């Protein structure tokens, strides 16, 4: 009985790993559901039950975390960073960043400090997870 849970967990993890690896691409729920080998509605529901947040929120915060990394570690422009991490408009990026981080990208950049650590750990531990904004209702994982 528990085998089914393990199998579905592993599939959800595979989809989450895909978001961590290819956050810069225009990921959407249908493509993530295909990776997990489940239907779209089943995917959103099960992902949330497994990891405690929707795929949309997970991916949005992964993109924000990666933009925080680039703001700290590089001199790339805000527009470049916005596109680098998978947002398609600077307006959406700046608004989302501010909602989640609590300050605009430019001021975060001024006080940000470089950290040397393996990427997987930075990604796992510094992705904003406390909820600054209530979650939007379920739509596509795309920004």
């Amino acid at each position: 009985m528990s085998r089914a849970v393990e199998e579905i967990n592993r599939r959800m993890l595979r989809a989450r790993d895909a978001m961590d690896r290819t956050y810069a691409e225009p990921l959407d729920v249908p493509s993530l559901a295909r990776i997990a080998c489940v239907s779209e509605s089943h995917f959103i529901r099960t992902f949330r039950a497994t990891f405690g947040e929707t795929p949309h929120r997970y991916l949005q915060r992964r993109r924000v975390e990666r933009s925080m990394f680039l703001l700290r570690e590089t001199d790339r422009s805000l527009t470049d960073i916005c596109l680098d991490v998978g947002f398609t408009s600077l307006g959406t990026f700046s608004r989302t960043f501010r909602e989640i981080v609590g300050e605009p990208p430019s001021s975060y950049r001024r006080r940000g400090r470089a950290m040397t650590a393996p990427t997987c750990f930075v990604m796992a531990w510094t992705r904003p997870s406390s909820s600054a904004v209530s979650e939007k209702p379920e739509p596509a994982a795309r920004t």
Partner: protein
Amino acid sequence: MLNAITISHVWVLDQDQALDFYVGKLGLEVVEDQDLGFMRWLTVGVPGDAGRRILLEKPGPPSMDEASAAQIRELTSKGATGFTVGFTTDDCRKTYETLVARGVEFTQEPTTQSYGTDVGLRDPFGNHIRIVQPAAQPASASAR
């Protein structure tokens, strides 16, 4: 006080499948494979690194009740058991390409940082593994 780390541990959900991965794909070798009657004592290590081995342990009764074992299996399969084991290599990119060709699932492609070039991957059960090619000259910042 202590001399060395000789053995560490990974939860695996199936020991034969674990061998297919850790030996067949990662290229480790079996150090011990003994039927102790109450458990299969199965360890693997890097060829040539005799001092260190990994116990591939299967959770289950009688060492723990079935419900506890199910919890461990569920946490492992959703990647919630954290970091498992780290290896070094002389050529991270080549190792990465070899393992991709063998169907290994990566969480991070080769990334170069001050301490070296590394990749992240998962075993078939969801455990998180890393492989690093240390930088030729150690950087001042140390990665923990």
